[in-house]
């Protein structure tokens, strides 16, 4: 009840973010229902059904990440002095965050179920009813148990992720109050917190492994046709090695994100910097973990999208068979929207955590234009470093797949 009351008085932007989570959840729920409907309608094509279900994992993961970012940024779930004093401390508030996330995802899933049934023609409420009964295999009856299990997957996963990620860290006796003020994301348990750039060598190594695997598999003999995984829009499918290489390269980008952000900051504040460069660089170093990880995911997805454009770009122009069905398009849209929204949310989160510093600087007479300039310099440097890197990795991953 408290979460509903807090939501009622919340800022419209916060409500909008919750609504976006619900929308994304609806998209994923719809995809899951579609894969279930396909499996029910084609009981013989087990492998194809399984591959469809597996492809739903990507949007699912993106939505869980987005829901987590929104819950972390939600002002209702930040520890507050007054609430802590009456016993609603960080522990209870993490439960509250998990509940709100579960509610948003459940609402989205329910909407997905309604839309799915309506489009299949099971409900017959609107003129649109049954509009897509062919695509959604409307003839076969939907097993309710399976449908509800699949729909319950996302709320359970995202609520669990929230509860785990936002649970209060172990309290340190005599911890520095300034250090704990910078949020739940900071690893406060470790005596010497792991530097954010520790993942960079791993990331680079994994990217290299992925590219090498792809090159190796691409050059090797063609694998047996029954071991191929279906890739949307390609008749023959792709070998698991190629897909594995692609996934490894993406994983590497995600791991390398914080480190890249950190070194961008170091680069920016090197030499004898003025105030703008100094503030921009140091803030980038400090927020490397918070911003770098979503940025890494964003880069990975962007490089995947670029590689897909490389692969299928020609097919779009032809008037022949379209490579992407509407469901693939929906999945890709959900992933890209979620990942972009997560990165934006993380940036807003970082900005909110800096608001104390910003007001202190304002008292000193530091003009707001200087802080805005620092933010602009930061984003420009990140763009200048990450965009070419993303493009290069996309080109390299697409190279063996083109053959």
């Amino acid at each position, binding site marked *: 009840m408290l979460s509903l009351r807090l939501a009622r008085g919340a800022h419209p932007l916060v409500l909008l973010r919750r609504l976006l989570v619900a929308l994304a959840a609806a998209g994923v729920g719809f995809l899951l229902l579609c894969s279930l409907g396909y499996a029910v309608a084609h009981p013989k094509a087990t492998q194809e059904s399984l591959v469809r279900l597996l492809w739903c994992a990507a949007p699912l993961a993106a939505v869980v990440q987005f829901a987590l970012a929104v819950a972390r940024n939600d002002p209702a779930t930040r520890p507050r002095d007054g609430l802590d004093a009456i016993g609603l401390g960080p522990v209870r508030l993490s439960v509250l965050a998990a509940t709100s996330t579960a509610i948003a995802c459940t609402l989205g899933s329910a909407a997905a179920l309604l839309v799915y049934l309506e489009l299949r023609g099971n409900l017959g409420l609107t003129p649109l009813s049954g509009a897509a009964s062919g695509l959604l295999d409307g003839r076969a009856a939907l097993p309710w148990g399976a449908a509800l299990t699949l729909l319950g997957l996302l709320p359970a996963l995202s609520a669990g992720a929230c509860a785990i990620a936002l649970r209060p860290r172990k309290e340190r006796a005599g911890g520095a109050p300034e250090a704990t003020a910078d949020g739940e994301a900071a690893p406060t348990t470790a005596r010497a917190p792991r530097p954010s750039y520790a993942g960079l060598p791993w990331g680079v190594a994994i990217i290299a492994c992925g590219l090498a695997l792809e090159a190796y598999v691409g050059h090797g003999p063609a694998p047996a046709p029954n071991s191929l995984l279906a890739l949307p829009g390609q008749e023959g499918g792709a070998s698991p090695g190629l897909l594995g290489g692609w996934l490894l390269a993406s994983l590497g980008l995600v791991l390398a994100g914080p480190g890249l952000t950190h070194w961008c900051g170091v680069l920016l504040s090197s030499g004898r910097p*003025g*105030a703008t460069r*100094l*503030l921009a660089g140091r*803030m980038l170093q400090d927020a490397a973990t918070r911003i770098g990880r979503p940025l890494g995911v964003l880069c990975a997805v962007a490089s995947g999208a670029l590689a897909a454009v490389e692969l299928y770009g020609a097919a779009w122009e032809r008037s022949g068979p379209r490579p992407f069905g509407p469901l693939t398009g929906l999945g890709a849209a959900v992933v890209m929207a979620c990942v972009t929204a997560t990165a934006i949310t993380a940036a807003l989160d970082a900005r909110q955590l800096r608001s104390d510093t910003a007001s*202190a600087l304002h008292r*000193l*007479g530091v003009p707001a234009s200087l802080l805005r300039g620092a933010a602009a310099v930061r984003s420009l440097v990140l763009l200048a470093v990450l965009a070419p890197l993303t493009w290069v990795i996309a080109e390299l991953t697409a190279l063996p797949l083109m053959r």
Partner: protein
Amino acid sequence: MVAPPDNDVLWARGLHYSYSGSPALTGVSIGVREGEILAVTGPRGSGKTTLLKCLSGQLLADPGEVWFNSAPVHTLSRGARERLRRERFGWIDSRPHLVPELTGWENAALPLLVRGTIHREAKRTATEWLERLDVGDCARKRPGALTQAQRQRVAIARALAADPTVVFADEPTAPLHQADRAQVLRTLTTAARSHQITVVLATLDEESTALADRTVTLVDGRRGGAIPAPDASEGEGRAACSVSA
């Protein structure tokens, strides 16, 4: 508008301010002489912070006049008031409010860097001030690795390093223990006296008023007691400190 007396570096008349309806200042007039240390005392909620914010141009009194060096502050635009704070004023808060990403000397040098001082010069000045305030070994540490007293000293160095005309200190010793408190306050006043810096010090404890030249008491947003003539106020401050001793 009446031009203020010439010997006051900062002068305010009839300051009123209310935070969305709740009055914080109701008609405060005050004059700060060049090079003096003026203590503003009063219980919590008596408007000390608001007075300091009005004097430093962070808040605009409505109505009320603030004059700095015989030039009006209350008619300046927001940007001009920011520049004034940047170039002529220093501000020490009750909490250090250092930038957590920057090291000690970078924090102290920040106002200089913002002004456009060259890097080497800013670093030299900041390091000198840190050493003068006994926190020279904190120059390369982040605020997270410092104790509260060290952080507060870095904040004082930040305010003083920019060579301000007036420093506003809003309960600068509030988060500190007694021993640190006296020491921090003494370093601040000594540094201010040796560099001819005017200090407006808002404080709760009696001890700090002993270090001031003059004391002004605020009660519920107005000057407490009889409003003294500028000449008589010296005696008032001294009297207050002798009572406390």
